[in-house]
């Protein structure tokens, strides 16, 4: 009996009342995202300092990296972000279903199950395309250490050292793989988390219009990952 009383006393009140006026899961995610802002700032800041502090020119945009392929990836991530927010809107309206016919409309109305699945597919697609990009880049000789000796890119860099940034290839490779790799890791974690939610909460219809905290919290994370990619795409691939 004594143990029971102690347990109850130790249990935090629910829903938690926080200083920010939101439930604790959401506050926790925002605090994590704030820390992640600093993490990516450190990476991007280091990249800027290394790139513009080097005497040798960096490789020109599009010379080494496959911009159309990454453009497709950016499109996938933007689509996944909008499908995530549509999933949020669907469950806020109590739409737990996959697709449902709406009288007077040609297109069926998507529910939480549909939009979450689209988000997972687009997210997994992003990771897949990034893997293909890495495999192709390494195959052409672009590694975290720079251009591999005897590779196609090393030959190009010898012929046109300014366009391919031959003098800064090592720094270019290490910063590129570090930044995009950490972002890819974030996307992978997001996809795994969404898959877990999909099978344990979304399909068994555990979310409702009254409680959809999990969807809102994973949504915040997913949009942040999209936001970071928007900045990375411009800085790494276009500038």
């Amino acid at each position, binding site marked *: 009996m004594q143990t029971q009383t102690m347990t109850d006393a130790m249990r935090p009140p*629910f*829903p*938690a009342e926080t*200083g*920010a*006026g*939101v*439930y604790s*899961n*959401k*506050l926790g995610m*925002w*605090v994590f*995202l*704030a*820390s992640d*802002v*600093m993490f990516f*700032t*450190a990476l*991007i*800041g*280091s990249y*800027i*300092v290394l790139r513009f*502090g080097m005497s040798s020119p960096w490789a020109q*945009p*599009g010379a080494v990296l496959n*911009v159309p392929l990454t*453009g497709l990836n*950016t*499109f996938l991530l*933007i*689509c996944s*972000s*909008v499908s*995530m*927010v*549509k999933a949020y*809107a669907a469950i*806020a309206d109590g739409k737990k279903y996959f697709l449902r016919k709406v009288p007077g409309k040609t297109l069926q109305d998507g529910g939480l199950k549909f939009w979450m699945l689209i988000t997972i597919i687009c997210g997994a697609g992003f990771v897949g395309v990034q893997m293909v990009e890495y495999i192709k880049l390494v195959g052409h000789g672009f590694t975290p250490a720079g251009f591999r000796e005897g590779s196609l890119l090393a030959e190009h860099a010898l012929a046109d050292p300014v366009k391919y940034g031959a003098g800064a290839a090592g720094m270019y490779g290490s910063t590129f793989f570090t930044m995009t790799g950490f972002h890819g890791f974030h996307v992978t974690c997001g996809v795994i988390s969404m898959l877990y939610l999909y099978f344990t909460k979304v399909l068994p219809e555990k979310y*409702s219009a*009254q*409680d*959809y*905290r999990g969807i*809102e919290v994973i*949504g*915040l994370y997913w*949009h*942040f990952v*999209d*936001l970071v990619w*928007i*900045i990375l*795409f*411009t*800085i790494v691939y*276009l*500038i």
Partner: protein
Amino acid sequence: MTTPAQPTATHVRPNYMLIWLYLFVMTIAEVLLAFELPVSRNLKLILLLVMAIWKAMLVALYFMHLKFERWRLRVIFLVPLPLAAILVTAVIMEKLR
């Protein structure tokens, strides 16, 4: 019996597909600006950064609903930004020394 926490959605819902269209069009504009348009390098740099920040703000304000959140919550996301600026400036100053 616990009461489920109600996520606060009392605002008018934004047109998410319109935001998606903005993001899509701006991404195409960025790629065109980077590779096709004959603009000076410095102007290109500024325009590309402005567009990237604009896109990031659209995501933060409308998809993450920061526009509709209370200031107490917005501050959590805004506080690291000046810290981030200080971090980058400090590293640049160290490099320039």
